[in-house]
């Protein structure tokens, strides 16, 4: 749907003061989404942001759209109802790692398997920020937090792995400090029909500062991030000389020009491949960490399947109105 109105990012900023800590990546996410929205061709009244509880979940207050700041873990369950109610709306979920994968874990996996047409922004900072620093379901083993003073004993989820396990059709990962990449990926997420999950590696400056610095810092990112694009070879590195090949069942980093490797040997990224094996290998890769749209498989959405079933009911059910229903089956007259 296109609109005659041409928005700028300012049209999506509310009059509320933004209250995140100075230096938080959340500011980058906010601005990147505000910059993405003018590009998606939706009227601002047709855009809804729904969040749960946590730092991330203050998000709707800062957008000049419709929104609900709801309760812990339930954002995507609420968003599912909103999308059911009005499939024309562009519905966005803003949620954190605790909100999505601890208290809201059940809703998270079920939204993905159902493929509700939503854009799900997962603010992953590997810590509970709003409650001031407890380990989350993505905190590392051994990580010292206020609730794990001697080290975290609970093995973490990798959100992408969990999502693919839950039959996610769209998964992307972006660095919290890269506004440009984020904006681009959010536009793609909106364009994708189905549940589009975007994991943001979001730095918490107060309770988990530097969690992603080995991946996202400007000085190291070229050598430790692989930004994938559908149809393009998976090449990375400051000198664009490193790439991925398959070594048996595993991905291997090779250097172009060494051991007879040429660019033609490098794997070409296929985000649309239904078989998730390679996507799973990509989300699990430790170095480089894969960014960009890793998986984007077109499949029927929940609402589309619902509509088909409704059509069958309309065509086959002999009862076609509420009045008919009231008088259907065995009725009798009392004179």
């Amino acid at each position: 749907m296109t609109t005659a109105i041409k928005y700028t990012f300012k049209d999506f900023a509310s009059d509320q003061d933004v209250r995140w800590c100075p230096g938080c990546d959340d500011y980058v996410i906010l601005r990147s989404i505000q910059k993405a929205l003018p590009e998606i061709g939706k009227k601002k009244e047709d855009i809804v942001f729904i969040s749960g509880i946590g730092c991330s979940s203050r998000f709707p207050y800062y957008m000049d759209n419709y929104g609900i700041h709801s309760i812990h873990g339930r954002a995507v369950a609420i968003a599912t109802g909103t999308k059911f109610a009005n499939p024309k709306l562009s519905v966005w979920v803003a949620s954190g790692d605790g909100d999505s994968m601890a208290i809201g874990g059940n809703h998270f996996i079920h939204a993905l398997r159902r493929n509700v047409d939503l854009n799900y922004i997962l603010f992953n900072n590997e810590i509970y920020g709003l409650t001031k620093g407890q380990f989350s379901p993505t905190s590392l083993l051994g990580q010292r937090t206020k609730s794990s003073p001697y080290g975290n004993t609970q093995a973490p989820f990798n959100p992408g792995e969990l999502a693919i396990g839950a039959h996610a059709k769209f998964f992307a990962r972006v660095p919290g400090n890269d506004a440009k990449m984020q904006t681009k990926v959010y536009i793609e997420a909106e364009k994708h029909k189905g549940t589009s999950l975007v994991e943001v590696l979001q730095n918490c400056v107060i309770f988990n500062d530097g969690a992603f610095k080995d991946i996202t810092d400007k000085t190291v990112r070229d050598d430790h991030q692989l930004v994938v694009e559908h149809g393009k070879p998976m090449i990375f590195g400051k000198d664009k000389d490193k790439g991925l090949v398959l070594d048996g069942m595993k991905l291997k980093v090779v250097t172009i020009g060494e051991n007879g490797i040429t660019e033609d040997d490098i794997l070409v990224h296929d985000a649309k491949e239904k078989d998730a094996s390679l996507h799973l290998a990509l989300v699990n890769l430790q170095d480089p960490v894969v960014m960009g749209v890793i998986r984007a498989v077109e499949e029927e959405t929940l609402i589309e399947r619902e509509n088909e079933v409704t059509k069958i009911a309309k065509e086959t059910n002999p009862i076609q109105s509420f009045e008919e229903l009231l008088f259907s089956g065995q009725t009798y007259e009392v004179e």
Partner: protein
Amino acid sequence: MSKEAFHKDTQTLDHAVIRFAGDSGDGMQLTGTQFSTSAALLGNDVATFPNYPAEIRAPQGSLYGVSGFQVNIGAKEINTPGDALDILVAMNPAALKTNIKDLKPGHMVIVDEDAFTRSNLQKAKYESNPLTDGSLSHYNVIPVPMTSLTREALKDSGLDSKSIARSKNMFALGMLYWLFSKDPKYTEEFLKKKFKKKPAVVEANIKALKTGYHFADTLELMPTHYVVSAAKKEKGTYRIIMGNQATAWGFMAAAKKSGLQLYLGSYPITPATDILHELAKWRHLDVIAFQAEDEIAGISSAIGASFAGKLAITTTSGPGLALKGEALGLAVMLELPLVVVDVQRGGPSTGLPTKTEQSDLMQALYGRNGESPLIVIAAKSPADSYDKAFEAAKLTLEHMTPVVLLTDGYIGNGSEPWKIKTLDELPEIKHHQVTEYQEDFHPYVRDPKTLARPWAIPGTPGLEHVIGGLEKDKIEGTVSYDPKNHEEMVKLRAEKVRKVKDFIPPLETEFDQEGDLLVIGWGGTYGSLKTAVEEYRQNNPNKKVGLAHFSYINPLPHGVAETFSKFKNILVAELNMGQFADFLRMNYPQFKYEKYNKVQGLPFGSSELINKFDKILKS
């Protein structure tokens, strides 16, 4: 049927309570439903109640695998499925053992004597055969070899022996049709329709039905058959309706009447799931029925749908209401329309999932964090569930606050005749939706009459706003931590609920309007209480007894104190430990409340209530 069938004596009854009991695979629910439907179609008033085990297919012949279906048919107004049984049909020893205590002494029990094998007797923990050891001498036992007679009748049917054995319920039903002088034609029609694609099954079942009918006619042990004449009912078109079905239809009616689409977010839970089943059938009639991943997602998705402009509901039972508590508090805070139906069952915890209780009242009123009042109403009978579901939807839409509708397993699974109420006979519903741009819009500016806020839905240009669980500024709805504003908002939300009092009917009293005893009840006990009060007054014409049955619990209706003050004694009868009595005492401490409570997973019987009335009025 042939005229010869009527050569025996005929006895006229004003009502009769019949229970069909058998193994959970014996088809007792179908048999009971057929008998009840035929009785209603032939003019009786009826009330039914199924009683089935929590296990789907418990081991055959076991005591805990017994399934029962009770029906009370009357030539007069029938308000309950009845207490003591006039006739019991027991398909095996386990069914006999678990049900015989409810049969009136001297009354008839019809048993399938073929099922009284050594192994079945053992499974039912009988040391000797009750049919021959004299232990049933104070009942009129009619042993009938139903299995072998059915087998003999169907030997040429072409059906396998399992299917033949399964038809014995139709044999039993045929006998009952003869006994109550009912034409089996409606069941024949039903079988033809149900097994349209299996003519052999239709033929076999009809044959079993007719064989049972003729067998009863010739049986010397059954010298009399009964006539329960047609009941006097208001003129109109009727159907038999189950409580859960009526609830579902009431919401569909409200959706039509308000011009909104109905959205149900739900998760399966006994005994509420039938509402989900029913609404799932009517998706082509503007109903969205979403089976969510859990109770919380059920209500959460309903909140999301309500935000986007649907008439949103969620259905559950006690444990589910507990899970929904936090989200229900969010709906209170958001001030969005939402109805939660709690079909109550025995608690706490998993409790008695298939049995009835009224013990979620306090949970409905207070089961949330913070000051979070909402509207609580209750349905009083299976058919009344239609009106109360409609009313719950009307109240939530007109007052912009969530409503909890309490029904229970007894009326949810029970059925009775219902004079069909069409959309034309229902009141208008005026919701607060705003779908067009308004100058100077504020999401929390209230309608002075109801204190309802405007319901601006996504997609409306220029009215973009964010609502949330944090306390809000009383006008803008933006986050506010101002202490004074919070207190004011708490009071406003409470006042909004309190104001509902002016929009609901005042308390009504049935029978005596003043005098010795006011019997008070709420929700699903209405039929039991009415039957007991009626009977008591007949036998004690010098006592003045009234019945005040509450459908509106929060807020309580007008007229409570005025009504209570006209009686010397007040008795609150409920299927819990006294939750409504406590609530009344809190609101009207000037009165003395006697209590009658029962928590056995069973409805009230008339005699226990009458004993209590006696005790109060004799002391």
